[in-house]
């Protein structure tokens, strides 16, 4: 059974229909790319899945549970993790504390009050920071990081709690070519650990790491399937690729 199943997702903002009955299925350990022109509804779909927006219609099932109306914290506790499009690390906290904050999020209240996981999580924080090449900056405030490093920190924070599904909204936006390459490298080992839904404008990047692509245009799915199949689809080439 699929890990994530979104059926007939419709989202209407005032007079704008951002999503018009979108279906999305993500299997375990699948890397699923969402592409489409600007305004095609990619980010809105991500937000509906994560709980930042409530769909006007449709149902979302995650790991066998109906999460259509669940608040974000409940979804996170079920194993859904999100990296927003806009970088939103916690600027005044140290890089280390940013990761710790993400790791301890599901601890019990008494565990937080008595700092019971401060010691046990130490190694995991360091390991995560090393993985994302941030170990040397552990003690600096997150605000002092470069834009690319802040994006890595966010991905690190989204991945740290070992989610079952990671939602990445434009992880390489504003990154240099070299930073993009490194980001791709950083994401490869993730495949063994969880599924991924990624929104990205860089098509080379997305082709390299994804198994399945879904193409959105004006709130509708126009094609969905393995990368090779989507790439050869004339419909996609007409609607999307030709315009980019």
């Amino acid at each position: 059974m699929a890990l994530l199943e979104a059926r007939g997702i419709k989202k209407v903002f005032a007079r704008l229909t951002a999503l018009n009955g979108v279906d999305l299925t993500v299997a375990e350990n699948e890397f699923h790319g969402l592409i489409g022109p600007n305004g095609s509804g990619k980010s809105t779909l991500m937000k509906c899945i994560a709980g930042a927006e409530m769909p006007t219609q449709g149902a979302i099932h995650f790991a066998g549970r109906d999460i259509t109306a669940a608040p974000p914290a409940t979804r996170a506790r079920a194993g859904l993790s999100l990296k927003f499009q806009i970088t939103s690390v916690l600027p005044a906290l140290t890089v280390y504390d940013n990761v710790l904050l993400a790791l301890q999020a599901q601890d019990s209240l008494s565990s937080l009050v008595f700092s019971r996981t401060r010691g046990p999580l130490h190694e995991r924080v360091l390991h995560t920071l090393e993985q994302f090449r941030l170990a040397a900056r552990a003690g600096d405030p997150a605000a002092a990081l470069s834009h690319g490093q802040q994006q890595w920190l966010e991905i690190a924070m989204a991945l740290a709690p070992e989610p079952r599904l990671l939602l990445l909204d434009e992880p390489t936006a504003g990154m240099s070519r070299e930073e993009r390459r490194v980001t791709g490298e950083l994401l490869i080992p993730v495949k063994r650990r969880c599924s991924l839904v990624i929104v990205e404008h860089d098509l080379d990047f997305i082709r390299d790491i994804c198994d399945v692509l879904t193409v959105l245009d004006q709130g509708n799915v126009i094609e969905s399937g393995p990368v090779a199949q989507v790439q050869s689809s004339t419909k996609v080439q007409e609607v999307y690729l030709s315009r980019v």
Partner: protein
Amino acid sequence: MADESVASSAHRSVSRSGRIAIIPIVEVALLAIFAVLPLVLQDYLTIFVTRVLILALLALSFDLVWGYAGIMSFGQALFFGAAGYSVALLARDLGITSVFIVLPASLVIGLLVSLALGSFLLLGRHPPTTIFVALGTLTGSYAAERLARGWYYLGGQNGIPSIPTMTAGSYELVEGPVYYYLAFATLVLVYLLCRFLVRSQFGLALAGMREQEARIAFFGYRVERLKAIVFTLAGAIAGLAGGLYAFHEGFVGPNMLGVVLSTQIVLYALFGGVGTLVGAVIGVIAIEMVSFWLADSYQQVWPIILGLLLLLVILFRPTGLIGLLVSERERVGTFGRRPRTLPRADHEGQHGPA
């Protein structure tokens, strides 16, 4: 002993951030000064400083809600006054004056009232806005004051006068050095508790909430619950302060519940600087000392001078008086194990092969 702890905390802070930490030094200095004050002050001044200590508890409760949890509460006096009235009634009508009953009772009453108001304001279906909570708490405080003014059983405008003295067994805790040390010990205890809490992993969650409330829900934090917990805890502290205040003054009145006092608490904390705990205490000391001195020397104009002083600090020093001494980095603090003490060579080693 005091010197020793300054040395050890300064040493620890240096190794953490490379800079000397100011807050622990200020804390120990204040602790040392206030520990000996009654020995050098005349009794009428000791009574005045006791009042300052009790108000510091109240400011501390506001610092917790606003400085740490980002909840703007204009209702701390509500919990203070509700507890004050309750223990006054316990003493008047039931003759209960034992410190071991009245202080825990005032704490519980503060807790229950804030729990009730907090559940209503914070745990609704939709996350409340800052303004909603500010107005909600303000209204609560206002309504409580009006209620007390009009309620005959509570003494109406006059409040409840001549509350019996607080007792510990057969010993009477009269105002002066004895009551001073009771208030001092309570303040130190509550302060240490708050300090422990805001520096724990729970404090990290609060710091995250203060900075990016919307973001941390996506990690799995139940933001509204965190807020309600801090609000209730702060209410309990305000209640405790109310119990101490009622017996110290020997009377309670409607002003103890009202908007004026609620606002005054906000100003204490903003003046001293929120989000450091010690800033709130400094705010109370500074404002009360200045008022005391001005009221003596410049009877007519002191409220104007005080008002201007407050405006100046709040407009030009958003971090308050403590912000003059303490960096933003120290104010936020660190929560994990000392990140800076990691040997640098280790990271370099792991950089290469990636």
